[in-house]
C-alpha cells in the first residue's frame, strides 16, 4: 500500500505541485541505494531539499544523509522534538511527528507498538532524530526507558554540543570548560557518556561518530535501522557541529568535523551477537542483489 498511496493517478498528475510529481517520478521511493542513495545525491529528487538551516550547518548535511540512506522511505516515520534538527526534518517528504519537549522516544514507543499490532507482517521503520538537549537532557528519562524496555526503533542524536535553537546554552553534551550561555564561567562537568549509557540501558547496536565519510555514515544509519527492526533499540551518536555558537568559520566546518574524529568523537561501533547476525545477513543479501543487477546489466550490454 505504501508506495501506492504516494503515487497519484496518472490523470491527476498535471494538477499536483511539480515538486510532488518529481518526488514520485525521480525520488527514492521504491528505489535501491545505487539508484537513489548517498552515493549519487544531487542526481535524484531528495526527500529533504529545502530547509531553513544556517549557512555551513553540518547538521543539515547529516539530516540529508539520513534521508538519503533510508532503506524503506515509503514506510518510514520520523519523530523529533524542539531544536534545530526538526527545522529540516519537518521539511522532508516522510511523515514527521512532533510532540512536546524531549518526548520523541516515548512517542516512538507507543507508535512502534501500535504499528506492530496493526501491521504484524509489514516493516514500518520508526526513527527518532533529536538533538543533544532533546535526547540526553529534557528527554533523558524517556530516552533511557525506551532503551531499557527494548523498544524496537532507532534513536539518532544530532550532537552539536549546545542548545542551538534557543540561542546557545550549555547542554549535558557540551564539553567541560565550554563557555556558553547559562555556563558563563565555563561548563563545570564533562560530556555525558551517551553511548555507554545506551549500552548499559540495553541498546543492541551503538555508534559514536563524526560523519565525515558519506559511505560509512550511510552504512551505519542503515545498520541501525535493520537491527532495530529485528533485535532491539539502536543508537547513533553523531557529531553535527554548530558553526554559529562555536564560531567555526563556514569553510572550516568540515575540517572541524575531521578534527573531532580524533578528539571527542573517535569512531566507536558496538553490536551484540544477534545484531551482528542481522547486519551480516542483510549486507550479504544486499551485496548478492547488487551483483545480480550488475550481471543483468552486463548481459544486456552483451
Amino acid at each position: 500500500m505504501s508506495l501506492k498511496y504516494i503515487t497519484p493517478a496518472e490523470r491527476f498528475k498535471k494538477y499536483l505541485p511539480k515538486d510532488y510529481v518529481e518526488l514520485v517520478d525521480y525520488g527514492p521511493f521504491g528505489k535501491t541505494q545505487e539508484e537513489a542513495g548517498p552515493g549519487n545525491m544531487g542526481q535524484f529528487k531528495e526527500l529533504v531539499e529545502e530547509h531553513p538551516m544556517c549557512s555551513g550547518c553540518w547538521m543539515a548535511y547529516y539530516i540529508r544523509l539520513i534521508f538519503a540512506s533510508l532503506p524503506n522511505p515509503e514506510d518510514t516515520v520520523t519523530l523529533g522534538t524542539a531544536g534545530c534538527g526538526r527545522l529540516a526534518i519537518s521539511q522532508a517528504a516522510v511523515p514527521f511527528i512532533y510532540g512536546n519537549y524531549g518526548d520523541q522516544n516515548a512517542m516512538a514507543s507507543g507508535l512502534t507498538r501500535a504499528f506492530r499490532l496493526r501491521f504484524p507482517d509489514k516493516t514500518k521503520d520508526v526513527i527518532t532524530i533529536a538533538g543533544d538537549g532533546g535526547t540526553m537532557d529534557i528527554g533523558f528519562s524517556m530516552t533511557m526507558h525506551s532503551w531499557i524496555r527494548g523498544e524496537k526503533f532507532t534513536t539518532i542524536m544530532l550532537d552539536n554540543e549546545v542548545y542551538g535553537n534557543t540561542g546557545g546554552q550549555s547542554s549535558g553534551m557540551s564539553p567541560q570548560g565550554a563557555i556558553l550561555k547559562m555556563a558563563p564561567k565555563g561548563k563545570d562537568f564533562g560530556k555525558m557518556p551517551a553511548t555507554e549509557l545506551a549500552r548499559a540501558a540495553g541498546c543492541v547496536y551503538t555508534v559514536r561518530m563524526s560523519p565525515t565519510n558519506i559511505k560509512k555514515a550511510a552504512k551505519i544509519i542503515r545498520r541501525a535501522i535493520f537491527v532495530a527492526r529485528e533485535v532491539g533499540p539502536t543508537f547513533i551518536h553523531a557529531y553535527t557541529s554548530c558553526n554559529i555558537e562555536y564560531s567555526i568559520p563556514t569553510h572550516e566546518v568540515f575540517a572541524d568535523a575531521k578534527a573531532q574524529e580524533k578528539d571527542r568523537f573517535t569512531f566507536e561501533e558496538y553490536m551484540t551477537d544477534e545484531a551482528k547476525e542481522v547486519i551480516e545477513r542483510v549486507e550479504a543479501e544486499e551485496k548478492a542483489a547488487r551483483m545480480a543487477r550488475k550481471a543483468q546489466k552486463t548481459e544486456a550490454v552483451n
Partner: protein
Amino acid sequence: MSPNPEKKLEKTLVDINYLLKEAPREKHFITGAQAMAEAVKRASVDMAIAYPITPQSEVMHLVGDIYAQGHIKEYYRAEEELGTMSAIAGAARAGVRLFTATSGPGLLRGLEAIVSWPGHRVPAVLGILTRVINAPLSIQPDNIEMAYMMHCGAVMLHAENQQDTFDFTLAAFAIAEKVDVYIPVAVATEGFFVTHAKGYVEMTPEDMALNEFDPVAAPVPAMDNETPPARIQRDAPVQKSNFMSYLIHAVWQQEIWDSNKRAMKYIYEYLGGPIEVKNPESEVFLIASGCAAAQAREAWRYAQEAGLSVGLIKVRAIRPFPIDEIRDAVKNAKSIIVPEHNIIGWLCKEVKAAIPNGGIVTEGPRVYGGMTLPVELIMKEIHNSLGLEYDLKL
C-alpha cells in the same frame, strides 16, 4: 512486551447505541475502579499504557489483567506520566484505540502531553481518578485537578458513582472517535469515594463489545503510510513566518474548541444530556457534579421530606459546559447552591459565568483536602437561602 492476537476472544461487536441503550444488563456490586476497567473490557481497546499513582493504580492493574486475559492487544507500564501520555500521543498516530488513567499529581506531570492531545487530534480516553494536588502531600480525593484540565480543549465528563463511571467510560470512546469531534475525552470521578467503594452497576454482557476502531474514519488520517491522503507534517512547529504562525495556531485552536462544542450532541445521544434536573420549578437549586452531586442528591431527598422548594441539577459534562441548559433550568430560581470537593470552586465559577444573575449563587459549601462532604452543610445553605433557621450538628 508483545501484542497478543493469539488470544483473540470471540465477541459480538455492536455499535455504541445498542451497547449503551439496548444490550441486556446484569446487576453487579463492584468498585468504581472495577466499573472503569469493566467498561474498558467492553470497548475493544487496542492498547493501554499504565503508570501507578494512588488512587488510580487499581484501575490500570485491572486493565492489565484484562490485557492478560486477551481483551486488549497491547499494554505496558511506562516510565512515568509524561512518558505515558506521550506514548499515547505516538500510538494515536498509528490509528489505534487507546486508554490510560491517572490521578492528581500524575495528571499534572502528564499535563504537558495531555494538553497537546486535542491539537494533535488524539481521540484517546483518559480516566481521571481525583486526588489532592500537593502541597502538603495527601492521597485524598479532592478534585481540584479538574480545573487544570478544563482549558485544553478535551471533553470532560464527571461521574457521580460506579454506574456513571461504567457508562461514561464506554460512551467516551464513541464520543472521542466521532469524525466531527476527534479529541480526547476525560472521564473523571473521585478517588476512593468511587474508586475504592462498591456500588451497584448494571453491566452489559462480557462477550459483547464496541465495534473496532476505524482508523480511516478520521478528520486527519493515521500517519501509517497506508491511509491516503499522505499525512506528511511539513511544518509541525508552524514557523514559516509570524503571520502564518498566528493564523494557523489560531484557526487550529478554534477548530479544537468547535470540536469540543460538537461533542454536546453525542452527550445528549449517549448519556441523555449534559445535566439531570429534578424539580424544575423550585426556588432553590443545588448544582453539583461527581461525588458532590451524590451528596447534593441526598440533601435534595431530605429537602423533599421536609417539603422545601428545592431542585437538583447534576452536571455530567464539564466540557463542553452546558451553559444554555443551566441558564434555562435556573431562569426562575431565587438562589443556587454549589457544593464542591475543592477549595477554589471551579464549578461555582462556571455556573456564575453561565447565568445573567450570578449574585444568586452561594459560594459553597466546599470541602477540600479530600474530606467527605456532610449533607448537613448543604442543608444549612438550603435553609439559609429560604430564610429558615437550621441547627447545624456535624
